[in-house]
């Protein structure tokens, strides 16, 4: 991997960088749409690339089950299988330890999964996870980490953190012995739950392994913890993680989450939210999400968002038509998915431009004003951005209320 920081924000900890992998460059900060089972749901690879996406995520656990390594080996990897010609990142399967925890048993050796599909038992060791990711052929591969739910308390959290460090060592060893380090780049994942002390220890340990990894991720979050805790962990980790490696916040997210993470020094994020919510009829805009299923959109001939360059808005397809088709026609799911992916990409692209032009604080204020101006700024966003020198309540925004709690923006009937 080539990784080069091109610009740094003078105020926040944001930076613009270029990451060049085996399947081309990806400008950071970026948002990665999730193609869990070797497809962004509803879209072909060409459609995804046409939206301006250069890096997507596949899931190791799922691809290992279906189609399986044999088939991937036969076709030459997941890129060739799904027709995706650009960069690919694979999650190690660690998150499935939490999401499918009813079916999982974790030991030092690895994780024993019972498949909810067919009851088969699969042992996932760090070495096995890396091997599977080798067969998949992703440009960025993730260590197998011992993930606990962010709401877990007690000694299990510390146990998982230390085990993640030990599993990182096993992943590094297995990866380096494979001879694939030139084309596939291993990332470490910082664990430690919501405990700043454990997080600090984990970051220190993983930085010691810096030469064995190409990047660092912050894992174990976005599991329902309070946003006020979330941003502090991100800030703590991003501050200490080396500046010459990309930093990846896993499972992020909503527009406000992404911008806060970028301000705190994060370069990459992934989340199923924009694509999943699209399939349920919700379109993302700078003025907040639009729940197109609501009656109020049934006669609105306007497009989702003026100025949006996505295939749906440029067709132009009206909110009224989407209202009638959403959740009934797969074509509508595809249309809103395309729009939401472009929304996320524009959000990050705009951030990159602003960081390079040293206008990122204004970009943040403008976005938050437009997105949250009516309902009030979430306290946690105000606090997080203040910690890096941006005051959302400055000037004209002083009279906008600030609301406690996580308060994601939503449109109700």
């Amino acid at each position: 991997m080539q990784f080069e920081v091109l610009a740094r924000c003078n105020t926040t900890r944001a930076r613009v960088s270029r990451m060049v992998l085996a399947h081309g460059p990806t400008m950071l900060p970026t948002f990665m749409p999730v193609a869990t089972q070797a497809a962004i749901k509803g879209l072909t690879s060409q459609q995804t690339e046409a939206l301006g996406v250069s890096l997507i995520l596949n899931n190791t656990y799922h691809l290992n089950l279906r189609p399986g390594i044999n088939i991937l080996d036969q076709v030459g990897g997941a890129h060739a299988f799904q027709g995706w010609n650009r960069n690919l990142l694979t999650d190690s399967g660690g998150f499935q330890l939490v999401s499918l925890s009813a079916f999982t048993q974790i030991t030092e050796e690895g994780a024993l999964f019972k498949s909810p599909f067919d009851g088969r038992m699969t042992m996932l060791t760090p070495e096995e996870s890396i091997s599977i990711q080798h067969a998949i052929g992703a440009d960025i591969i993730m260590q197998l980490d011992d993930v606990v739910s962010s709401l877990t308390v007690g000694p299990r959290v510390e146990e998982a953190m230390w085990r993640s460090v030990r599993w990182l060592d096993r992943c590094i060893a297995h990866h380096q012995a494979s001879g694939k380090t030139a084309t596939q780049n291993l990332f470490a994942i910082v664990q430690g739950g919501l405990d700043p002390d454990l997080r600090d220890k984990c970051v220190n340990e993983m930085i010691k392994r810096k030469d064995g990894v190409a990047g660092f991720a912050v894992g174990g979050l976005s599991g329902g913890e309070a946003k006020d805790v979330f941003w502090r962990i991100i800030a703590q980790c991003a501050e200490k993680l080396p500046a010459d490696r990309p930093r990846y916040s896993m499972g992020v997210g909503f527009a406000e989450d992404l911008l806060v993470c970028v301000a705190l020094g994060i370069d990459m994020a992934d989340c199923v939210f924009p694509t999943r919510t699209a399939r349920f009829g919700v379109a993302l805009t700078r003025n907040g999400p639009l729940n197109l299923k609501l009656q109020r959109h049934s006669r609105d001939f306007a497009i989702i968002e003026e100025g949006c360059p996505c295939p749906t808005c440029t067709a132009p397809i009206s909110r009224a038509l989407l209202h009638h088709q959403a959740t009934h026609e797969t074509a509508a799911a595809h249309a809103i998915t395309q729009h939401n992916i472009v929304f996320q990409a524009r959000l990050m692209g705009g951030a990159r431009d602003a960081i390079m032009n040293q206008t990122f604080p204004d970009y943040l204020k403008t976005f938050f004003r437009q997105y949250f101006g009516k309902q009030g700024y979430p306290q946690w966003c105000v606090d997080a951005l203040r910690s890096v020198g941006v005051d959302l309540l400055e000037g004209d925004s002083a009279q906008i209320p600030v609301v406690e709690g996580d308060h994601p923006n939503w449109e109700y009937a």
Partner: protein
Amino acid sequence: MSTISFTLKPDPSSSSTATAGRLGTLLVTRPDGAQLDLETPNFLASTSRGAVPHLSRDHVLASSSTRGLHVTYDSLCVLEQSPPLPPLYPSERPMHDFLAYPPSKHILSLSLRDTDDTRTAPTNGNDFVNVWTARGVRRTVPKPFHDDVVKCHVDILEAISDIPTTAPPYSQRRLEKSVERTSGWLADLLRRHRPEEGSTPGILVNMVGGTSVQARKAFALALQETLDGRKLVDDLLGVSFDLAHLRTILDAAGPTIVVEEDIIEKVQTADSVVLVEEHTVVQPTLDIVEASTAAAEDAEDGSPSTLIASTSTRQPDTSTRHPLVPYLDASLHSIPPSKLRVARSTRSPHDVLLLIRDTGIDLFDARWVQDAASVGVALTFVFPAPSDLPPSSDVGINLYDAAYAYDHQPLTSLPCDCIACAPLPPSAIPHTTSSPSDALPRTEPDAAYRRSYIHHLLRTHEMSAHALLAAHNLSVLERFFASIRHHLLSSEFGEEVERFVRTYDGRMKLLEQARSDWKDVDLARGKGRLAREKVKMAEAEG
């Protein structure tokens, strides 16, 4: 003002061809002079709620098979809106632009109801029809319906017709009403919106009359009636046939057998009735129906079987003549051949070929190829049929089948320009102006999608499988029609149709298996699966 016309191509051969098929051109000219043509025989892609199933707008644009589109008013949710929405769309071609189908690229045809929906409903009246919508049965009144649709500036409009909504059989009286109402509503439409000099919308009328030859002929004659000095039929672009309705009536009428004319008497006095094998195509000619129905009523067992004989003089080959031809022919009896002939609810390529050969249908629907895509079937048939295929070969492949997990070939080895076989190199939307882009120009064409990938998508309940298959199947259909047009006027056309009908399985057994596979995956991975999984786990533990 857009204009629309249908013109037959002259047949260069001096002798009359052995088939009823003909070549034609459906031409739409836009106000700016741009022209859209569909060479016939050809098809219109079906839509659902205005969308081509599974195809987002960029895929519709990338497809050459969606030039002609058919929209049904009932699925646009219009019938619940007050006032209806599409006519209010602020543009000169409201329906095109509301549905986002550029007038420069698409011919849009519209009818009230989806002919494939044969559910029964309360009976129609003199001034209304009952139509199934997403929210149940709705009453539609012809006058406002016609007025609203004309405001939408579609290119082809099928006038509202009185197709009986109750269960068959239909009495003579009911069919007479159908004839009166349909011709009356058509006359009313033409009185208020007489198409001037071929301006859009071109009007079609559904040829009603059920399976009564008398009624069908009567309706055709009703179209000869004059309105302000012109016959109704003169102002029509063409006529349409609802095949699903005919099949519903025939299915309800019970099993049929075919006998030679000279042994009819013997069969009528027999004590029992013998059924022919299920897959033999029978050709009812209704001149005999009344007599044979009486005979059946006299039969000892009282079973409702109907004796049919073929007395038609035009018999290219009695073993494969399309069973609905006698009804279509009765309707076309007094309709000028220059009128466009549209068939809706075809079910197979066999339907298409036989209807072209036997009745000269010009325009078909594509619902069956799109439905095949919805259940994981990639169509592979070609016309003329390859000589090396065994009889009753499948018309396509069911990609749910485990055999395809390791089949890394493209969908077809023949040239295909659909987005699955020849993916379009993407042109990435830029998201930055002052910082660098990460778009990468293509140096090579993208590889075709593999069967193993589409198999994987189907098994994991991924929607993109159906997008790829929908585009592919429409492309297969497009090549099918192009080949038909190429061979239509040759003396071998009839033979080629015969050979195709023998080579490929017209009952499409493949689709039954695919539908069952689709259902299995949907149960395992579709809506409601978490609840089902919980139940399964509880049962496994308990």
